[in-house]
């Protein structure tokens, strides 16, 4: 469990993270989305006690990170792929890491094997490709077997095999009851990996909702209705408008947004309208995300006080 309360980071006049209050719950993968410069990395660094918040708090398991005696057994994090000294071998990097938290040395070879780096563990990290660096970073995050894991762009530089491996790893870590907090720009990948999304733009919270809700909230998620009776469809259209739905006419039917397919079906039944098609068209996460973040840019400029949520 990660808890942010009023978390704020200002660099002079620039507010990188603005009054962020969220809980990142265990047992699911929480995707952390936002445009470049939205404050994702700054937020993660504040959670890890690397950057000092200008205001507010970030707690992991109820405590600030800097007060954790066995930090690596509480939180595993991959911040960037080049976190190891280029002149140190992967094994020595992990040995030093394990020693700091009293983690058994045998665990080092275990995590090296689990990320597929056993063969090259004696090579210096500076010789690693970006993908190998990511694997070493992930090995480090797993080293302390922590209940909370954070990954900043974990699939950067990985081949398709590696991408799928990371996806399965995230899913299984969450299935074991751990808190998994992942940032990424790859929406298609997030759609496959995340259960829950936190979206920020210009440092502010835009959405904190299950991924299904985010997609359902998109204007591109719609209910399609087709029927042989124009009069019936017109009546249905009026009733839907009364329920707060947006309705557009399309070839031989209607495209309805703002209500669920169940509501449309129930109304059609009440009105006795003859239907030939009642289906949903789902937006992709990418479409939903683009809409959300475009709005944030549009509405963030006049700076209303409080959260844009």
């Amino acid at each position, binding site marked *: 469990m990660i808890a942010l309360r009023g978390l704020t980071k200002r660099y002079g006049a620039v507010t990188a993270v603005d009054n962020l209050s969220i809980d990142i719950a265990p047992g699911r993968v929480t995707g952390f989305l936002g445009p470049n410069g939205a404050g994702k990395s700054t937020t993660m*660094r504040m959670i*890890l*006690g*690397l*950057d*000092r918040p200008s205001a507010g708090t970030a707690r992991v398991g109820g405590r600030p*990170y*800097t*007060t*954790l*005696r*066995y*930090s*690596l*057994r509480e*939180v595993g*994090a991959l*911040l*960037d792929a*080049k*976190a*190891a*000294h*280029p*002149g*140190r*071998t992967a094994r*020595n*990097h992990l*040995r*030093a*890491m*394990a*020693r*700091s*938290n*009293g*983690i*058994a040395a045998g*665990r080092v070879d*275990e995590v090296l094997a689990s990320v597929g780096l056993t063969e090259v563990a004696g090579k210096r990290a500076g010789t690693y490709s970006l993908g190998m660096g990511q694997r070493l970073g992930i090995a*480090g995050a797993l*080293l*302390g*077997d922590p209940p909370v894991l954070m990954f900043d762009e974990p699939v950067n530089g990985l081949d398709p095999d590696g991408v799928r491996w990371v996806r399965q790893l995230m899913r*299984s870590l969450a299935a*074991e*009851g751990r808190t998994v907090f992942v940032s990424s720009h790859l929406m298609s990948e997030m759609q496959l990996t995340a259960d829950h999304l936190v979206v920020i733009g210009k440092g502010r919270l835009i959405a904190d909702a299950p991924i299904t809700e985010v997609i359902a909230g998109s204007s591109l998620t719609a209910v399609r209705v087709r029927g042989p009776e124009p009069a019936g469809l017109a009546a249905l259209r009026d009733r839907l408008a009364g329920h707060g739905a947006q309705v557009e006419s399309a070839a031989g039917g209607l495209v309805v947004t703002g209500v669920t397919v169940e509501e449309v079906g129930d109304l059609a039944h009440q009105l006795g309208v003859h239907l030939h098609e009642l289906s949903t068209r789902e937006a992709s996460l990418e479409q939903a995300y683009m809409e959300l973040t475009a709005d944030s840019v549009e509405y963030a400029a006049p700076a209303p006080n409080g959260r844009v949520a």
Partner: protein
Amino acid sequence: MAVREAVRPGNGPGSTRGGGLGGAIGTEWIKLWSIRSTWWSLLASAVLMAAASLQYAIYATNSNTNADPTDNQGVVAVGKTGIQSLGIAQFAIVALAMLVITTEYSTGTIRATLQWVPRRDRMLLAKTAVAGVVILAAGTLLGILGALVAAPMLGKWGRFPMPGTVADVLAIGVYLALIGLFTLGLGAAMRSAVATLVTVFLILTVVPAVLENSHVTVFVDAARWLPSVAGEHFMLRDSTPYPAGVGLVVVVAWAVAALAAGYLVLRGRDA
């Protein structure tokens, strides 16, 4: 949760073994010896010490015009050779101490280090302990090396008083350890290798020379309180202008001040 039980690392749930300052020191120890620059710095310090000691011994022998070695004039205690030869060799040790902290910033590993050891005072204390102990040992060995290289060259002009030589050699270790910690503190405060090296070089070498050659009494007197000058008083066990013990205290004060500055910067700034 089955997987978590199967791969439980560390010493079991709720274990309080490992970690803390001991863990942080162990980490810094592994980190120090697992990069090549440490070994190169130590090798360089040995080569520079040997070369400078040899040169000093040749100079001491050649400048002796007194034909009788039993006459005390011109006879050199070999333990002093290392002290006189530190001028250049100390910078290899300075480099070693500097790299302990500045590479963390140049490579970005500081963010990893602070995830492992989140308390910054503990992190700096661990680096201080490891660098201090390693340089104390290395410096003592350098002192022995200087004496061993100089002894055959000095020949009849050399003297080997046992207690004095031991004291000389240990003093070299202590001085270098303190200069190393001074450098470590400055490195933590400045973060940049170039800025740190230039500052240390100025304070140890350039500023004392400029002040001593100024022939302005105030400046000449001020030079005595710089770490390299005070360190030499301490190592040579001079009694003027202040006792050798005061020289030691002065060097300790420089090291403590630099570490305090490093800690203040480390505590306040984002990593």
